């Protein structure tokens, strides 16, 4: 009884903590509310939020491009003729700057193009991304920029977790990544269990770093300022291995043929499109776009375009809804 009360109290404290964060305009979550009252957003909190990948069900079929329903966020985006999206700039397969053209490219960039196409229609084929403004952001600043209204949507290899849902809302899962381990081709290691006492790199502040630190084989976690810095350290021999999302690691094997990915998954990393909290209509719209992509094969085409060389496309991650 006392334990349950304590847990509820802790959960409230966690919500209060999230709401007094650095975001200057936390408009839609200004007041701390007990988890039970947090609606339509799911109950966030340290105690867990059930299955965090459950998103909001699309209400009806996708509106025709250029005809977003009045009063919706999508309509606002359509009216200003600009979808402003945040992406990574340094992940080879998902969102990276092509040094030859200085254009961003990758799975997530193409995914955002589909969103832009759903809002503005095909007429933006005239010029590349005429209505899609891509801004490279760090994971740390993504939530802040969303809440400030500087970004409409973020596709940034963001895993949908209960902790992340305290800051932003998510679409359904658009890609299912898993945390694995990358070692040198010459290494006999077959998984993290063989990396006792070895230096295993992950980006500072990432969930992957915590997973490495908690591994029973007691590897030495090495925190790098970003993921690419992990590959630099790996190539310089400072780190023996890297542990992170398999798509990031696949990008690394593309850049370094002496690296290979080993072992079973250490954690699930379900990626979702992030939007500012308090815009359920935008979440439902994005889910409708994703639903369409799953159904008509565009998702599979995207997978094949960016990841096809590593194996056949799996079925798209199923949509999970909470209402």
């Amino acid at each position: 009884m006392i334990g349950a009360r304590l847990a509820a109290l802790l959960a409230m404290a966690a919500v209060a903590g999230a709401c007094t964060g650095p975001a200057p305009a936390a408009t839609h979550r200004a007041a701390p509310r007990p988890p039970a009252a947090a609606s339509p957003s799911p109950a966030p909190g340290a105690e867990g939020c059930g299955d965090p990948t459950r998103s909001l069900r699309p209400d009806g079929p996708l509106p025709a491009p250029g005809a977003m329903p009045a009063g919706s966020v999508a309509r606002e985006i359509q009216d200003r003729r600009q979808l402003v999206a945040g992406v990574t700039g340094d992940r080879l397969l998902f969102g990276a700057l092509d040094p030859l053209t200085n254009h961003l490219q990758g799975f997530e960039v193409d995914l955002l193009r589909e969103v832009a196409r759903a809002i503005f229609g095909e007429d933006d084929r005239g010029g590349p991304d005429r209505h899609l403004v891509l801004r490279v952001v760090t994971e740390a600043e993504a939530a802040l920029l969303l809440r400030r209204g500087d970004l409409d949507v973020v596709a940034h290899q963001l895993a949908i977790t209960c902790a992340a849902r305290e800051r932003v809302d998510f679409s359904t899962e658009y890609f299912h990544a898993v945390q694995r381990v990358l070692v040198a081709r010459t290494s006999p290691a077959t998984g993290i269990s063989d990396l006792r006492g070895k230096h295993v790199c992950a980006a500072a502040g990432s969930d992957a770093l915590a997973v490495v630190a908690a591994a029973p084989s007691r590897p030495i976690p090495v925190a790098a300022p970003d993921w690419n810095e992990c590959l630099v350290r790996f190539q310089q021999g400072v780190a023996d291995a890297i542990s992170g999302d398999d798509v990031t690691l696949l990008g690394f094997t593309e850049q370094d043929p002496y690296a290979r990915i080993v072992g079973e998954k250490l954690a699930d990393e379900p990626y979702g499109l992030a939007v500012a909290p308090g815009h359920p209509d935008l979440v439902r719209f994005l889910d409708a776009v994703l639903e369409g992509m799953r159904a008509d094969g565009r998702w599979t085409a995207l997978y094949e375009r960016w990841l096809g060389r590593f194996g056949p496309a799996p079925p798209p991650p199923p949509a999970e809804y909470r209402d």
Partner: protein
Amino acid sequence: MYAVSPASPSLIIRAELFTSLRPGAGIRLVRDRASTTPGRLRLLSVSVAAGAGLLWLAGSSVMLGEAGALEGIGRGTVPAIVLTQQVHAALAAADRSAANAFLSGGVAIVEPRTEYEIDIETATRDLEQAAEQNRAGPEASAQLQAIGALLARYTGLVEQARANNRQGFPIGVAYLRDASSLMHRPGDGILARLDAVGALNERDLARERAGLTVALAGAAAFGAVAAAVVGMLVHAQVFVSRRFNRQLNDGLLAATAATVLAAAWMGGQVAHTALAARGAEQAYARVHDLWRARSLANDADGNVSLSLAAPGAGDEFDRAFTAETDELGRLLGELGAARSLAAYRAFLDAGADVRAAVAGGNQAGAVTVALGTGPGQLAVVFGELDEALGDAIAAAQDEFSGAVDAADSPLGLDAGLPCLAAAVALLTLWGVRPRIAEYRA
């Protein structure tokens, strides 16, 4: 002069001095001699001659001290400091062109790559020169060696960045950032170590400045000797005119004038050197600030390229750009360098254009503005700023060299002083000798 004739009076004094074996005999002899008129006159002329010798000694030591200190400052320490700043700017320029070459994809634009190679060559050559000419001791020598080793690592990282970038690998950016961090990070970065060498040279400069001050203060000792000589000459003049009821003694008068002239000349020379040294000091400060401005301009431009090449790095490079341009603007304002300031404002505008393009999601457009060679584009206005600063540096450097040369000039006193000192002694002798001769007649 002693061997003129056997009857020479000084020879007699000498003979008497050498034949007196009793202690204290010499002093008594001098006193006895001084009590007689010719003896007094002889003693006075010998004293004046000795004073003239001292005058020459004191003046020469002042001039030697000045020359030594100015040589150290003008051709040793200051050039050494400026050389470290030159290396600093060349390395900052190398880091800038490495980022630019990276941003250009290493394909489209060949120029930044060539620029990088030239910058690295310049920096390496200047660095070797700095190591050869190092005067700041073993600590500076160790730092310069460490810089050489780090520079090899730096170029290795840049090459790795380039090789990865050419294959379209984002990890190239990570290598480039590591290289730039190795160059710029505070404490043990290459530029920080270079600044430490500069600081060691600054310490030597402070010592040489003190040396110059001491040398200039030595002019006071010269003045005291000159005053004493004038005193003796006036005393002799008074003595002669009273004893012989004559008009002013021409020889003594001329000797007095020569002494006063020597003192005035010396005073003028010291004042001239002090003034020119102050001018050199100001010119040096200007050279120093301008080189720093040039490094800052390179850093700021490099950070624009790094910010574009590594968009995922957050606002790290944008903040560095703002800090560097703020400092640059302050420096240029203090320096009152009009042309550089105008170029600086154009540079800021172009930087804002780049950022506006990035904010609008137009990465390719931002790169075009950053590397483009059209009017008002960043690479062009940076070139103008760098050129304006280069010209200002050359002018200030000329000003400095000119001021040091001017300060180092003895104004003819090096030849004039021995002549004047000899003249004082000879004119005194010439004036007094006929009076002594009257006693022998």
